[in-house]
């Protein structure tokens, strides 16, 4: 891609890192954002070592101020923004929730990153995305469509992002800015740790996937994310692309 600047939130590890690497490999200049600059810089260095272009800056998506600053810094440095990937999710996303008795403060933690975070990221990026007729991509989850008995708060905020994507796609359609979702399944450091602790877990998950394996952030999720960020998807908006080996076929 020529002249394509993409910003990824929560990009220091897991899917954020995989998507950042894939975007850079496809020719994007990648703004790697993370709460800790050093963690983002490691991914930026990794991209540079592979011959790509990347720059790291801090962004805590729970702070509207921090989001605005990261986007302003991107504008100042590169003069444009073509795609924003909101990938960050609460650190407590995988923690089972006692729905009936859970503290509202826990809901806040989920909502701050995914619900409010989607709003503040979209609002801050809008003027720049409008100038490039760019793309906003939210990482959502099949949990937001199916619901989840134990990860109910996670399912709630991932559902939130689906409503958000559809409504905003219709709102921004006339401007040429596209808004989509991507619902992945991939091994991240946390999941890899869980697989190590429980050697049967990976197989149990894979058994429910027609393709019989759990995806890889860079090679399996990266390319569809690049597609949704770039000109190849120029007529696609308001959609959720489920990238999980066929695990969910209901859409």
């Amino acid at each position: 891609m020529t002249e394509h600047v993409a910003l990824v939130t929560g990009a220091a590890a897991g899917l954020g890192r995989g998507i950042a690497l894939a975007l850079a490999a496809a020719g994007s200049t990648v703004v790697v954002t993370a709460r800790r600059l050093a963690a983002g810089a490691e991914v930026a260095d990794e991209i540079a070592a592979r011959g790509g272009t990347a720059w790291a800056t801090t962004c805590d998506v729970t702070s509207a101020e921090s989001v605005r600053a990261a986007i302003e810094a991107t504008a100042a440095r590169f003069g444009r923004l073509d795609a924003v990937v909101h990938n960050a999710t609460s650190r407590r996303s995988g923690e089972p929730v006692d729905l009936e008795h859970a503290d509202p403060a826990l809901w806040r933690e989920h909502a701050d990153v995914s619900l409010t975070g989607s709003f503040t990221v979209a609002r801050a990026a809008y003027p720049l995305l409008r100038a490039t007729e760019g793309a906003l991509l939210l990482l959502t989850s099949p949990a937001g469509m199916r619901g989840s008995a134990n990860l109910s708060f996670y399912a709630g905020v991932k559902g939130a992002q689906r409503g958000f994507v559809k409504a905003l796609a219709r709102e921004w359609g006339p401007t040429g800015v596209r808004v989509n979702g991507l619902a992945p399944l991939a091994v991240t450091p946390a999941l890899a740790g869980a697989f190590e602790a429980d050697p049967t877990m990976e197989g149990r998950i894979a058994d429910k996937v027609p393709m019989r394996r759990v995806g890889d952030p860079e090679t399996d999720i990266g390319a569809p994310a690049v597609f949704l960020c770039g000109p190849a998807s120029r007529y696609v908006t308001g959609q959720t692309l489920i990238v999980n080996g066929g695990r969910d076929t209901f859409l």
Partner: protein
Amino acid sequence: MAEQVALVVGATGLGEAIAHRLVADGRDLILCDREEAGTSGRLAETAAATGARVVTARVPLDTPDTFRDALPDLLRQAGHDALDALVYTMPPDDAFTPRPLAALTDDQWRRLAEDPVRHGLTVLQAAREPLAPRRGRFVLVVPAIALEGAADLVPLATAAETLRALAKSAARRWAADGITVNLVTPDVFAYGAEHLRGTDVDRGEAVLPGPTTPADVADAVALLLDPAAARLTGTTLIVDGGALMTP
């Protein structure tokens, strides 16, 4: 006193129509609202005719425990010790006013997207305990833009789809107790949002003649509370005159 009791949250608009329908079907009723909940004339009339008990209450939903703590006393007033049905209809104030996302302030986002979710969550969190003894049913009513989106209504679509995902989660979680959780999603005109005619949300695709009315929504809720609906949980009934037709 009737055999069954339903609690309806949201006393005006759709809530009033649903309350009226549930009383007409022979249930006792607890009607709650964030504001002072009054009974409409026709609700009082129907209740008098069926002999239903109707209890109304203003219950703030801002603090999580207020609703939960109010339930035992409301049930006692209604002459019951558990709930057969809980219907949540509360649309946020001012929810149907179109506003472009880029111009929303943090406060507006909180009020329009996040507060409604917190209020719904408050009710959902308290629902399992009173519903479990009677293997009761929860019905959540949110606008169908949860499924389709609509320009300039991003906070409402977001809040509605959040609640829908939370309700499905509860459906999975409470199935073992025999509690079912289902959704009814009416078009925005059932909410009386006539000012949205001709806007993005109105594609004029309903195939049945006439507009969707609050009574249509109440009928759909009644269907989900019918004994014949026992095997349905986590489903969404779209009440829009055939505009969307679930893909």
